[in-house]
């Protein structure tokens, strides 16, 4: 049957030699260029399988003679990105953190780099907008436990808070006045009243007047006579509107009774020095950053009346 090939009269094309109830099929083979493209694709596929990972094994695929891998591609892209930053990172590394502000380009790069590093390392506690949470300071405001100039922020970042094994770590020690039996529950209530009065949340009362005396004896050494706090020992300001743990009576009572010991990692041992500098610049830029203290102030603080 397959030998019944003949030329179709209407088209002049040979049939394939089959016939079904009078229906025949013309033999129009693939065009040559199509066929060769197809062969070329096969050849390409074989070559591809040789040079790239292609054939799966039990644990991994064949490596391919080019040695390409998606992890390797990522690594090289990351390296290229790092290399593109290398020059400015070297400049930042050579510049003391308090002098970054004097160089517009370095400051900008530092703030942007800090913004990125903050998202990876800091947002877990301080929040994506650095607004903090209960026990984790808001970094946007103008209240600083240890100081808000860029060098101090840098110092705090490098050594962390209450990090064992780091001599320069920020360490504040508030006694647990209730738990350790230093003050009685009633005395604590009086102190709490006093604190709420100096922070403007309550009117003076008998309790607060008794508390004032207790405050002067037990608290003023760190928190100051008027509750103005001390950055030297990391004692918070008590006469302002900002509360790390909360300013209501129950929370202050809890704080005085058991004390609070917040912690922060010493980033100096976790991140490279340039990244820590960048973080300091970023945190300083959030709106609460302070000018450097007196000696360096003349150079750094030049707040123009007009924005430039």
């Amino acid at each position, binding site marked *: 049957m397959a030998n019944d090939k003949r030329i179709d009269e209407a088209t*002049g094309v040979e049939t394939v030699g089959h016939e079904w109830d009078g229906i025949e099929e013309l033999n129009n083979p693939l065009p040559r260029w199509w066929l060769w493209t197809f062969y070329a694709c096969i050849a390409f596929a074989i070559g591809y399988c040789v040079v790239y990972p292609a054939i799966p094994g039990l644990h991994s695929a064949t490596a391919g003679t080019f040695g390409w891998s998606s992890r390797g591609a990522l690594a090289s892209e990351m390296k290229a990105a790092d290399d593109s930053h290398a020059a400015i990172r070297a400049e930042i590394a050579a510049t003391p953190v308090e002098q970054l502000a004097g160089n517009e380009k370095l400051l900008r790069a530092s703030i942007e780099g800090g913004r990125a590093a903050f998202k990876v390392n800091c947002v877990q506690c301080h*929040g994506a*907008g650095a607004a903090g949470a209960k026990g984790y300071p808001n970094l946007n405001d103008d209240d600083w436990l240890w100081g808000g100039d860029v060098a101090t922020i840098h110092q705090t970042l490098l050594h962390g808070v209450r990090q064992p094994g780091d001599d320069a770590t920020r360490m504040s020690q508030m006694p647990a006045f209730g738990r350790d039996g230093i003050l009685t529950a009633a005395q604590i209530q009086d102190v709490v009243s006093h604190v709420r009065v100096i922070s403007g949340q309550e009117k003076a009362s008998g309790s607060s007047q008794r508390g004032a005396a207790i405050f002067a004896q037990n608290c003023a050494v760190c928190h100051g006579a008027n509750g103005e706090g001390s950055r030297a020992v990391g004692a918070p300001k008590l006469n*302002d509107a*900002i509360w790390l743990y909360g300013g209501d009576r129950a929370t202050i009572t809890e704080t005085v009774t058991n004390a609070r010991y917040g912690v922060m990692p010493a980033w100096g041992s976790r991140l490279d020095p340039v990244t820590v500098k960048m973080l300091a610049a970023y945190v300083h830029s959030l709106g609460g950053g302070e000018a450097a203290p007196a000696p360096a102030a003349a150079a750094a603080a030049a707040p123009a009346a*007009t924005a430039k």
Partner: protein
Amino acid sequence: MTNAHDPKLARADHSDEISFYEKRKGVFPRGSDGAFRRLKWAIMAFCLIVYWGTPWLRWNRGPYAPDQAVLIDLAHRRFYMFDIEIWPHEFYFVAGLLIMAGIGLFLVTSAVGRAWCGYACPQTVWTDLFQHVDRLIDGDRNAQIRLQNAPWTASKVARRVFKWGVYLTISFLTGGAWIFYFADAPTLQREFWTGTAAPVAYATTGVLTFTTFWLGGFMREQVCVYMCPWPRIQTAMLDEKSLTVTYKHWRGEPRGSVKAAQKRVEQGLDPLGDCIDCKQCIAVCPTGIDIREGPQIGCITCALCIDACDKAMADVGRPRGLIDYFTLDDEAKVERGEEPAPVLKTIFRPRTLIYLGVWSAIGVGMLFLLGQRTRLDLSVAKDRNPEYVMLSKGAVRNGFTIKLRNMEDRPRAVVVSISGLPGGAIYTDEMDSDLARQSLAVEIPADTTKRIRVYAVVPKGAKPAEFLFDLKASDKEGGHDVAKTTFTTAEGNGQ
């Protein structure tokens, strides 16, 4: 198997019968003269002068902006056109111009048929130019045909190489001129020749040189017939009232020479028509068609055949206009023995007037917008995280990113102030917060958008509020803009 059943032979038998490929027949148009030819000269000169000359026009915009009259500054996202400067956010002006160009083509088609194809299309202009080069170098129509059919002798090779060299020179000048619209022309010219221009300048020049050389030198009428969508669209746009180049067959047929006509008269037969079959209409046609076959896709309505026919008619003392601009409607009227409609009535018909109305409305609307647009602009983005910050003394601070846009070609001093925020004051991130006040003086550099961080502070007891940022120019020219935003406290955002 017999030979008749041999597939190769069978195919060979049929291969000549149907082919979907039509080999190009060379077109060697004869040089001509006449009213339309002179009009085409004028339009060609105008188009080429505009194309080559425009980038070199200078326009004084002061020290902060380029002095090129027409400049598409892609790098800085600016489009300059004489006194108009367009920023990316005003791109609707460009879109409007493109829409006007589109409707303008409809308008022209409705009024005078394929006039765009015949006179102003770059393909037509450059094909015309190259055909003149052909005539200058190879001689007129007959000489060109002779040379085309001649064997490839050394002299033919030399002539071809020389002609293609001229083609290439024109193409290079054409392709090279394009890049000057995108950069300062004198500077780019210097950089181009010293090899220091951007690679894209060379690439663009190369590509456009090649397309001009190929499309204008060799493809020519095939672009119009096979490649260009516009003739196809025009087929749909033309109607029985559109002007087309028409052979008045009712006057011309039956055609025959002057001698044959005399003979017929002597024999007492019906006289012949006016067409003397001199084939001058075919000889001058740049697309090589015979207009006497009726309207067709290859006819770009360049009207050169009208010139040629008028000349022939004058030579034999018959009235002009055997081939002329005419409409199908008029053709039917003439065949019925009526008078054709006056030309002005044909041109200014309702369809054309509607196009004209839409086209003008868009144009006037854009001019109005152009006059109305502000050259000073303020936009305010409020910080969303954190929405507000409680400060030590109980004040509340909100952060804003403010964009000040100065679209003038000079720096401007402005004042940014707030209103509607009781007790509120603002300061920037480069100021001491103690200096916070109601308004800030800011200098915006020429032709830029300046971004500043602004903090608004309201003392203790702040309430959420909606308030306004206000931008006012300090110079005598003035100008101002307002942006509404909100002040958020722990109680909400005032909405």
